């Protein structure tokens, strides 16, 4: 399933709320958590990371992976944390509303 527009940013922020990760870790984490139901494009992820960094929601620094490879580790900023909280609330409300409407039984059913 492709992602709905605008949700990738929140997912990335949510992922990073568990701790700093590099890009590939984030990708695998998202795949694992959604049990393969969500299809996150690598290209879109990279762009989202840089976009969020530009907006000061993330910050990054070079580090070394367990496999000894150099990678940029992303980390939430306090602004990012606040943004995540607000967006989560907004999306939850949205999804609730959507579910209520779509789940309502009609004569056609």
């Amino acid at each position, binding site marked *: 399933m492709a992602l709905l527009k605008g949700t990738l940013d929140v997912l990335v922020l949510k992922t990073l709320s568990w*701790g*700093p990760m*590099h*890009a*590939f870790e984030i*990708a*695998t984490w998202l795949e694992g958590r959604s049990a393969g139901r969500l299809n996150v*494009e*690598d*290209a879109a992820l*990279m*762009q989202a990371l*840089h*976009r969020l*960094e*530009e907006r000061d929601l993330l*910050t990054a*620094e*070079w*580090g070394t*992976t367990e*496999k000894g*490879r*150099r*990678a*940029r*580790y992303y*980390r939430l900023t*306090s602004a990012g944390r606040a943004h995540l909280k607000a967006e989560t609330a907004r999306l939850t409300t949205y999804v609730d509303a959507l579910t209520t409407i779509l789940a309502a039984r009609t004569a056609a059913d």
Partner: protein
Amino acid sequence: MADRGIRPGVHRIFRLPLRSKARVRADVDEELESFLEARTEHLIARGMDPAAARAEALRRLGGATVGEVREYLYDSALRREERVRFRESLHRLHQDVRFALRSLVRAPGFTLVAVLTLALGIGASTAIFSAVNPILFEPLPYPHPERILRISDVGPGGSRLDVTFGTYHELAERSRAFDALAVVKPWQPTVTGASEPERLDGQRVSAGYFRALGVPPVLGRAFEPSDDRVRGPKVAILSHGLWRRRFGGDASIVGRLVTLDDNSYTVIGVMPSAFENVLEPSAELWAPLQYGESFAPDSREWGHHLRLVGRLRPGVEREQAAGELAAIARTPVPEFPRVPWASLEQGLTVSSLQDDVTYGVKPALLAVFGAVILLLTIACVNVTNLLLARGAQRRGEFAVRSALGAGRPRLIRQLLTESVLLAVLGGVLGMVVAELGVRALVVLSPPGLPRLGAIHLDATVFVFALGIVTLTGLVVGLIPALQASRAGLGVGLQQSSRRTAGTHASTRGTLVVAEVALAVVLLVSAGLLLRSLQRLFSVPVGFDASRLLTMQVQTSGHRFDVDSVRYRFFEQALDAVRRVPGVQAAAFTSQLPLSGDLDVYGVHFERDRDRADALEAALRYAVTPGYFEAMRIPLRRGRLLDAHDVAGAPQVVLINESFAKRRFPGGDPIGERLHFGPDDGRWYTIVGVVGDVKQASLGLVQSDAVYVAPTQWHWVDGRMSLVVRSRGEPAALAPDVRRAVWSVDKDQPIVRVATMPQLVAWAAAERRFALIIFEAFGIAALVLSATGIYGVLSGSVAERKREIGVRSALGASRGTILGLVVRQGMTLTALGVVIGLAGAVAASQALVSLLFGVQRLDPATYLGVIALLVGVSGVACSVPAWRAARVDPSIALRAE
């Protein structure tokens, strides 16, 4: 996971080096590559073969569009880097400013002197700029102001003369270069009605006046040609100010009637509030000129009393228009006959309205502007010197800072921040100085200064001030910063380096020389102006100006339409004035010397009868008996005018001395006859010769003058100037004299009340204006350069304490040491004076038009300035010299 970054709120001590663009790109590339490798490994671990895994990893990163993704990441990363840089520089600026503030606070004496000096320089130049800008640099407040021209007739000696209506009429009909031509003359109607009667300043204008200026009324309409004809409709246009003041800004004013001089005028328009009437700034209402086109030679249509302005047609150059006007002037045509005194034989003078308005004041303003730039330069030099001296004291501090890793650029930036901060503080205080200065300028300004209302601190002036502040800060700080940073890097921590002290001293010496030189230029200019003014005031005016009160009395209303009624009023007023206690003598004259009146007529002597063109331009005075006695104008020959010279009696005139000498060299003018204008059979016999009187200005050469009795002239003038010789203080008599005139008729306006000494002072106002400013700046320059000399010598004495100690230990007398220091100071002064004299010689060229009766290379002035500077620097040297002479050798030697 542990926080790898730095907690917000904790200041970084070691900053991350900023990254280059290439470095930023390489980082992005590396991140992408690392991601690809991780993905590929991940896929291989799931059983893909390596080549396919790599291909799949690439596909997921955009495949064919991976280039675009990469670009996106580059751009984003570069933008981030940009922002970091910006924040970094803000942070550094903040640091620098805080550091600079701390170091300025640590040296309050230095800071105070530097800030005050800069405030003086910046404030004075801002104030002068605000005065000079609207007059010299800003265009006039009209659309396409460069197209508005002022056209004048050529008077005696090539002077500019107002045109006649005849000339205007001919040009308006024959010229093709203009969209609109208009003539204008002053008009002072009295408005009566519901509220108090009020004398207004206004103008009578031909129909095209507002079109020529390019500003239409904001309410109602402008004048049409149909308004401007003999016995045309009585219509008027009001200024915005008058409309608000007198009519409460009533929106329905158009069409209403107002009473002006007993006549009802219909208001047809109101000018916008922003309208500036540069030809007559005080004018508040306008009415059509309504001259006839009969052109009888003795009619007002042929009087030189109208100012002519024109708006060029788009695409027509000023030179073209001037050429066309010259051609018209050269070729009279029968349809437009001319009179001899408006024959246009000498052509016409054409100038832009801007030049015309600034004509009289331009030299003074440019000189003043130059002077303030000099003052600002001196202030800058002085502060530079202070900073250098301070830099020398702070050498240790810089050494420590550079040892701790501050690079030279960093040190320079730090020092420049300090000097700019000083300039900003000076600028803020300077604005206060400027505001006060502008007020003083407006008070001091000569009466002829145009656009006075436009002089204030506005956005343009602030931009100028800001520019000056920035420039000053950088200029002032650059040399000290370069020197101090060099010292900091070069000589390390050894405090007493003689080598660098040497370069410091020589730079500071050079600056003092510059300061002295600039002060010489200012002082010589001030001196030349002072001597000009002294000469000007010692010019004999031709009458006794002391204890003379003057005012203009005008007749207003229809009952004065008849000449005899008018004259009776003046006669009765004169009787009443003469009865006022304290009045010694009183008389009326049609034009008052040095008041701006200029009433010139063509005079034709009988002896030139066969030469119809032998017309002389002469000032015409209609004076009541007793005028010469009241003014104390001496009689040279023959008799004065008396009570018997009335209408019907033989017509007589007096002429002035230089006219008599020029026209009748060696002969006797008494008994010769002359007439005015064309030969109308009205001959006047010369019965006396009186002394010369300065009419137009103190500086101008004498012009010819003719005096007649009012009732023997073609008409009785409607406005006459009253001259009153008082026994005591003339100004104190003014209320009583005014009351005496009003006791005859309370509705007659009295204007231009002034004592003659005031008029004499005003006649030199422009030079005096320049002089006051030059004097103030000259004194400031003198003080600044004296402190400069003092500062350098004190610094040098402090640095050479050891040397002086050695000298006196070796037997040098106090006198020798005193001489040593004084010689050092005087050498600087002498160098400065020599350079300054050269500068003053060049600068005096710009002052020539302001000088009077004194050569621009006047030796007395130059010598005086040299003496003054040598004296003042002697005083400035003496304190440090005395201090040096008192150096105790043992203490000085132990100090090391």
